[in-house]
């Protein structure tokens, strides 16, 4: 247990410069963008005379110099106050917190789906190396990887929601929600089938490739030859001596993919009209709600850091060679 805590402490320390750099970057971007919260406010409320704008600026502390503005920005971040979202007419933090659970649910399911199916297919391809099955899986993964997720999503809607009517067109739940709790859970799950599948398929190719090459490597290892010499059943050799060590690079990939999936959720949530962080980002971007964009970027970064921490803990459990002083080399 001590090892895990050391790992967590170390990772959190390493996250500090990352968060700092990202914050500075966001501040720089907002400065570059020109136009501040007052402009955005006035644009929504329907203008106002320059004197009123000036008063507001003074009131919100926006007329000060760059350094003062930066310090004010840092202070607001530390207190988790991301400002006011004009688009949502509520504090940015509230808007984000409302949407976070849906995205977390969808992302978690999509990560699990793509990693499980991807490693399974990659493993099968490795065991059948050089056969038609291998070629089919490899090419299929490449083709899926090349398709834009919004396109897979729209095609899935046409086929499975419009033509076959197996799944809903979009949304996270039905308007007439079932009374029972279990019914509500199933209702949400039913709504998530298409978006999760689309998001998962779009990011599955990497797992297929990684697992395939890792397993081809372990299959040729001395310990697999030794396991065969010990007369172990084939299935056992495949599971414990080929697949299990091959899973290590796949687990590493989970962390690296988290950010990509979060980015992908913007498109998928927009296509399936799911009220999550991604569609919130879309609304913020299309209406230039800069405080909201900044808040989403920061929260997104934090989410990736948390996922990576979970991945590191899992990795340390799976690979006994990871010790306190030699934690998974670097971030990549």
């Amino acid at each position, binding site marked *: 247990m001590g090892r895990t805590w050391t790992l967590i402490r170390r990772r959190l320390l*390493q996250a500090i*410069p*990352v968060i700092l*750099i*990202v914050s500075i*970057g*966001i501040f720089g*971007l*907002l400065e*570059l*963008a020109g136009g501040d919260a007052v402009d955005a406010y006035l644009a929504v409320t329907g203008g106002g005379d320059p004197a009123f704008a000036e008063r507001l600026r003074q009131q919100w502390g926006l007329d000060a110099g760059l350094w003062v503005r930066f310090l004010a920005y840092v202070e607001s971040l530390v207190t988790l106050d991301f400002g006011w979202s004009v688009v949502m007419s509520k504090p940015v933090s509230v808007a984000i917190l409302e949407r976070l659970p849906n995205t977390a649910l969808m992302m978690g399911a999509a990560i699990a789906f793509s990693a499980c199916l991807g490693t399974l297919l990659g493993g099968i391809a490795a065991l059948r190396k050089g056969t038609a099955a291998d070629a089919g899986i490899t*090419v299929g993964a*490449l*083709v899926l*990887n*090349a*398709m*834009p*997720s*919004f*396109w897979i999503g*729209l*095609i899935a*809607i*046409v086929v499975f929601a*419009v033509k076959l009517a197996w799944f809903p067109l979009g949304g996270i739940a039905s308007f007439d929600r079932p009374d029972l709790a279990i019914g509500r859970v199933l209702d949400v799950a039913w709504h998530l089938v298409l978006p999760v599948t689309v998001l998962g398929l779009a990011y599955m190719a990497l797992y297929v490739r990684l697992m395939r090459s890792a397993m081809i490597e372990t299959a040729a290892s001395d310990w697999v030859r030794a396991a065969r010499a010990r007369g172990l059943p084939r299935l056992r050799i495949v599971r414990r001596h080929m697949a299990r060590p091959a899973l290590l690079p796949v687990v590493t990939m989970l962390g*690296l993919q988290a*950010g*990509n999936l*979060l*980015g*992908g959720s*913007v*498109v998928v949530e*927009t296509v399936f009209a799911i009220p999550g962080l991604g569609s919130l*980002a*879309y609304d*913020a*971007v*299309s209406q*230039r709600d*800069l405080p909201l*964009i*900044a808040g*989403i*970027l920061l929260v*997104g*970064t934090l*989410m*990736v*850091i948390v996922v*990576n921490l979970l991945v590191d803990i899992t990795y340390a459990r799976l690979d006994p060679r990871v010790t306190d002083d030699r934690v998974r080399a670097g*971030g*990549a």
Partner: protein
Amino acid sequence: MMRHWSIGGVIGAAVLAVLVLVAIAAPWLAPGDPLDIVGRPLLPPFTDPRFPLGTDQLGRNVFAGLVHGTRVSLLVGLAAAAAAIGVGILVGTVAGFLGGWTDEGLMRVTEAFQTIPTFLLALAMVSALGASTVNVVLAIAISSWPATARLVRAEILSLKSRDYVDAARLAGMSRLGIAFREVLPGAVQPVLALIGITVGVAILVESSLAFLGLSDPNQVSWGGMVANGRAVLRTAPYLVAIPGAAVAVAVLSVSLVGDAMGRRLLVSRER
């Protein structure tokens, strides 16, 4: 050398060559502005020889859009990938060669860019700076250089210790001079294997941004065509299917070529 080109690599290269030709010949293949209204709206494909792929709900020629969209996709993809790889090589070389605090600082920045969800960053940048083609290229480049930087840095570190670097140092070259003139050519080689992926991702990100309405509104793009077709998804699904398939074909051909290049590189390195 041709022996090492797989079937996939050959097919990818052929398709890519066709796409490049189409992009170059767009003004002759489909003269005029592809955003002009030229016919009856919602003509299905293969019904009117003037509009082989039909028209959209405003009566714009889908074929013309597809042809001109090739230009935008390939141009943005290549430009963004070139910029990303350029920045990556620069950062990786400086970090790997100077070491010390410079390395430490640059690697923290690289880590930050690998942690921040890159598509969100690209969205934010385009939204903040305005939806022009240049900004789209910039946004994609800035969110996809870290992989190259890490790779180049690792290569530099392993090459740095070799003899010829010492020889160059004895000959009185400056440290960065050695880095860019002597070590870099060797370190850049494995980056070639990354080109395919980087260009492919850039094309995908460009199409996603365009789909979300974040691209130059005066230029036709495949992602924008899909977004436009979405409104009539039930009645005219071809308006979504055709441009989306074009994105998939372009990305697939680029990644097939990249794959083949990477594999050839591996073979030549093993010798």
